[in-house]
C-alpha cells in the first residue's frame, strides 16, 4: 500500500531520516515505534506531504508518487491524524470535516448534504459526534473522532495516526482500537506511530522500529516481545520498571484545603480541591489532560493570579496562599513545569544563565555589596556542579539551552530545581519528550529526593509512570479529585473509570 524507499531528510544539521525504508502491507495495521526524536513523525509527515524529502521515493500502490503537499496525499487516498489535532476551534464539526473537500458547488456550500454524509459515516464506524457542535465545546476524545471522520470523508484508504492514544483514557483506547480493527477488516490500511509497547503488541500486525533517524528493526508482532522492541528502540537492555523501597511518610508538608480556581474567562478550573502530601512520599495525580492538573500545579507554584484563587494552601505549616512564586520558592517549593520551553527555560539563554533562573538574585549568582552584580565565578561553579550531578550533555555551560536534546533540557531544569533545595517538589510530566535512558535517570532522582525526606506532588499523563512512581495516586476529573487508589494494586480499568468521572470513591 505504502512504501518509503531510501527517504532522507535533514533539518539544518540534524539528520531526521537517514535512508529509511518502510513497507506497509495493504489491509494491515502497521506500528511505527521509536523514542521521541527517532524520526517517526518526520517520515510520516513526508508521506503526507507536510515535508518534502531531500532524497528517496514514495510508492503508493506500487507506483512512484509525487507528493508535495497534503493536497496531493489526500488525492492518493492518504489521511493523517496528527498528534496535535488539526482543527479550527470556533468552527463546527461539520465545517471542519468538509473543509477542503466541500459538497455542493463553488457558489453554494451544501451543508445539509455534508451533515447527512457525516451522520452516515458516524453510524458506519460508530464514531458518535454531533456534526453541528463547535469544536471548542468537544472533549479531546471527541475531537479525535472528528479527525478520523475527516480522513474518512476524504475516502482515505490509508490512515496515518500520530500518537493517537496520548489523550485517551484506557477505556477509550480499547474502543479506539476496536474502530481501527473495523477499518482494517474493511480493507483499509493503518499506520500507527507510538512509543507505548503495550499498545504496539495489542493492535499491530507488523512493526517497524526506528532509532536516531534510521530503521533498526522490522518485526512481525506475533513473533516478538516487549523486551525485544524496547531493546531495539534504545539500543541496549532497559529496565521497564521503577525500583523503589516502600515510602516512610513523615509529617504533612503540603496541605491544600478547598482550593477553587477560575480561568481568565471566569470558568471554573478547580472545584474544591483538598489534599495532603507528607514528607517522604510521592503523591501522584492521574487524569486525562485538561482536567485541572495544570491549574493545580501552577496555582501551588504561585503562578495563578490571586483574584482567580480561593481556598487555603500551607507548606510546612506556613500559610502560602497569598505568596507569589518567589516567596514560595524561598519557602522551599520547587516546580518542574509541564512545558519546559514555556515555563522552564529561556531557550536562547546559555546553560549557565538558565541554571540560575529563580535564584539569580542571591548568592552564589550575585556578588558585591547589596548583591547588585552577577558573579560569573559563582554562576560557573554552580552550573558545572549541576552539569556533573545531573549528567547534562554536552557539558558546555556557554551553549544555548536550545542546542540540547529534550532529555538534557529536562535534566537541566530538574538539576536547578533540586538544588534549591526543596522541601516540596511540584513536578508535572517529568519525562515528556525525554528518551528512555533519561527517563530512568529522572525517575531514580525523584525517588532519591523522596527518600531524602522531600514531599513530591507528581502529575503525569502517562498512567504507567504515575502508577510506577507514586506511593498514593489521586485521579482528577473536571477540576475535582475523583478518587484515590493504591497504585500498587489498582487496575488501569479502575483508574480509567475515575478518569472519566464515573465510579466515585474506590476503596
Amino acid at each position, binding site marked *: 500500500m505504502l512504501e518509503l524507499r531510501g527517504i532522507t531528510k535533514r533539518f539544518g544539521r540534524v539528520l531526521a531520516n537517514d535512508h529509511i525504508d518502510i513497507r506497509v502491507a495493504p489491509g494491515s495495521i502497521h506500528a511505527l515505534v521509536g523514542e521521541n526524536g527517532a524520526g517517526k513523525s518526520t517520515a510520516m509527515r513526508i508521506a503526507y506531504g507536510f515535508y518534502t524529502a531531500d532524497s528517496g521515493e514514495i510508492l503508493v500502490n506500487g507506483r512512484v508518487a509525487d507528493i508535495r503537499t497534503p493536497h496531493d496525499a489526500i488525492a492518493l487516498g492518504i489521511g493523517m491524524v496528527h498528534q496535535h489535532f488539526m482543527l479550527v476551534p470556533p468552527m463546527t464539526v461539520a465545517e471542519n470535516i468538509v473543509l477542503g473537500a466541500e459538497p455542493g458547488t*463553488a457558489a*453554494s456550500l451544501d451543508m445539509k448534504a455534508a451533515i447527512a454524509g457525516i451522520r452516515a459515516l458516524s453510524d458506519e464506524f460508530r464514531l458518535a459526534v454531533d456534526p453541528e457542535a463547535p469544536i471548542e465545546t468537544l472533549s479531546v476524545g471527541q475531537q479525535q473522532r472528528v479527525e478520523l471522520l475527516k480522513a474518512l470523508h476524504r475516502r482515505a484508504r490509508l490512515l496515518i495516526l500520530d500518537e493517537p492514544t496520548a489523550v485517551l483514557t484506557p477505556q477509550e483506547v480499547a474502543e479506539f482500537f476496536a474502530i481501527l480493527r473495523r477499518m482494517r477488516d474493511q480493507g483499509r490500511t493503518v499506520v500507527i506511530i507510538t512509543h507505548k509497547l503495550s499498545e504496539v503488541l495489542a493492535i499491530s500486525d507488523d512493526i517497524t522500529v526506528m532509532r536516531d533517524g534510521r530503521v533498526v528493526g522490522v518485526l512481525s508482532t506475533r513473533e516478538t516481545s516487549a523486551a525485544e522492541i524496547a531493546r531495539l528502540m534504545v539500543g541496549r537492555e532497559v529496565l521497564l520498571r521503577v525500583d523503589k523501597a516502600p515510602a516512610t511518610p513523615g509529617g504533612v508538608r503540603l496541605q491544600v484545603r478547598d482550593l477553587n480556581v477560575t480561568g481568565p474567562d471566569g470558568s471554573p478550573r478547580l472545584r474544591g480541591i483538598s489534599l495532603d502530601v507528607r514528607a517522604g512520599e510521592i503523591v501522584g495525580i492521574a487524569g486525562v489532560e485538561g482536567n485541572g492538573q495544570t491549574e493545580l500545579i501552577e496555582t501551588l507554584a504561585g503562578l495563578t493570579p490571586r483574584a482567580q484563587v480561593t481556598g487555603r494552601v500551607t507548606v510546612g505549616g506556613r500559610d502560602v496562599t497569598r505568596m507569589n512564586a518567589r516567596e514560595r520558592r524561598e519557602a522551599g517549593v520547587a516546580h518542574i513545569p509541564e512545558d519546559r520551553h514555556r515555563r522552564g527555560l529561556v531557550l536562547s539563554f546559555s546553560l549557565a544563565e538558565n541554571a540560575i533562573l529563580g535564584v539569580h538574585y542571591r548568592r552564589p549568582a550575585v556578588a558585591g555589596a547589596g548583591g547588585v552584580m552577577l558573579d560569573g565565578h559563582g554562576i560557573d561553579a554552580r552550573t558545572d556542579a549541576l552539569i556533573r550531578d545531573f549528567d547534562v550533555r554536552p557539558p558546555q555551560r556557554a551553549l544555548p539551552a536550545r542546542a540540547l536534546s529534550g532529555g538534557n533540557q529536562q535534566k537541566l531544569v530538574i538539576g536547578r530545581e533540586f538544588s534549591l533545595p526543596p522541601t516540596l517538589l511540584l513536578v508535572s510530566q517529568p519525562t515528556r519528550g525525554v528518551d528512555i535512558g533519561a527517563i530512568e535517570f529522572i525517575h531514580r532522582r525523584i525517588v532519591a529526593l523522596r527518600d531524602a525526606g522531600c514531599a513530591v506532588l507528581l502529575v503525569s499523563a502517562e498512567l504507567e509512570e504515575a502508577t510506577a512512581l507514586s506511593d498514593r495516586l489521586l485521579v482528577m476529573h473536571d477540576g475535582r479529585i475523583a478518587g484515590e487508589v493504591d497504585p500498587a494494586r489498582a487496575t488501569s480499568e479502575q483508574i480509567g473509570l475515575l478518569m472519566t468521572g464515573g465510579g466515585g470513591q474506590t476503596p
Partner: protein
Amino acid sequence: MSEIFTLALVFSTIRLATPLVWAAIGGLYSERSGVINVALEGLMLAGAFTAAAVTFYAGSWFIGLIAAVMAGALTAAVLAVACIRFGANEVVAGTAINILFLGLPAVLSGALFLSSGSTPQIPQENLIPAFADVSVLSVLALAVTLATWYVLYRTPFGLRLRAVGENPEAADAAGVRVQRIRYAGVIISGILAAVGGAYLSVGQSSLFTRNMAAGRGFIALAALIFGKWRPVPTMLACLLFGFADAVTIQMQGVAKLPSGEDVPVQFVQMIPYVVTIVVLAGFIGQSRAPGALGVPYVKER
C-alpha cells in the same frame, strides 16, 4: 437640537459611511484570511487618485472605477507578495503602502496635470450618478455587505477563508492551499477599498485632492474590529462612525455655548475621533480576532 437631527442628517450619514463600508468590508476579506491590513488607507488613496485621473481623461466614471479597481488589486498584490511570499511584517508593509500613497499621487499629478497633488475638476455629468441624493455606490455597499455574509458562511471559499485565518496549519492538513486563499483575501480587500476611494474622488467630490482619505482607512479598520470581523455588524459600525461625522458637520456653527458663542469648531471636529476611541476602548475587549491574524504561515520544508 431639531436643527441638527433632520432628514438631511440621515442622507449625510449614508454618504459619509459609504467609503467606510467599502474599505471595512474589504479589510474583512484580508483579515479573515489572517493577514492584517493596515494599508486600507493607502488602498483607498490609490483608488481615489486612479479613479479621478482616468475619469478625467476617459470622460466616464465607469472606466475610472474599473481602473481604480485594477489599481487597488495591483497595490494589494504587492502587499500580499511582501507579506505572504516573503513573510514581511504586515504592519510595516501596510504602513509603507500608506506612506507611498501620500506621496505618489502628488508626483503623478505633477507630471500629468502640472498640479501639486490634485487632479483637475471633473464635469458633473461624468461623476458617479446618485438618485435622490443616494449614490449608486451607497446602494452597492449594502449589497456587497450582504454578499460578503453569503460568501463567508455559505460558500466553500468562505469556509476556507475562515479556516485559513483561524488555523492555517489545520487548513493545510485538510488539503486547502493556504497561500492561495490568503492572496485572494488580500487582493479582494484592495479591490473593495479602492472602490471606497473612487467614491471619495468621483462620487462625493469631483476631483482628487492630496490625502483625501484623511484617516478613513483607519476608521474603517476600527469599524472592522468593532464589528468583530463580521459583515453586518461591521457595516453598522461604519454607519455609527458616519453618523458621528455627519453630526459634526451639522453642528458646526449651530451648537452654542451657554454664553451664546459658537462652540469652537475644533471641539466639534473631535467628535468622530472621540467616538472611535470610546468605542474601541470600551468594546474591543469582547471582540475575538481571527486566531491566526498577523501570523505568517511559513512551512518547514
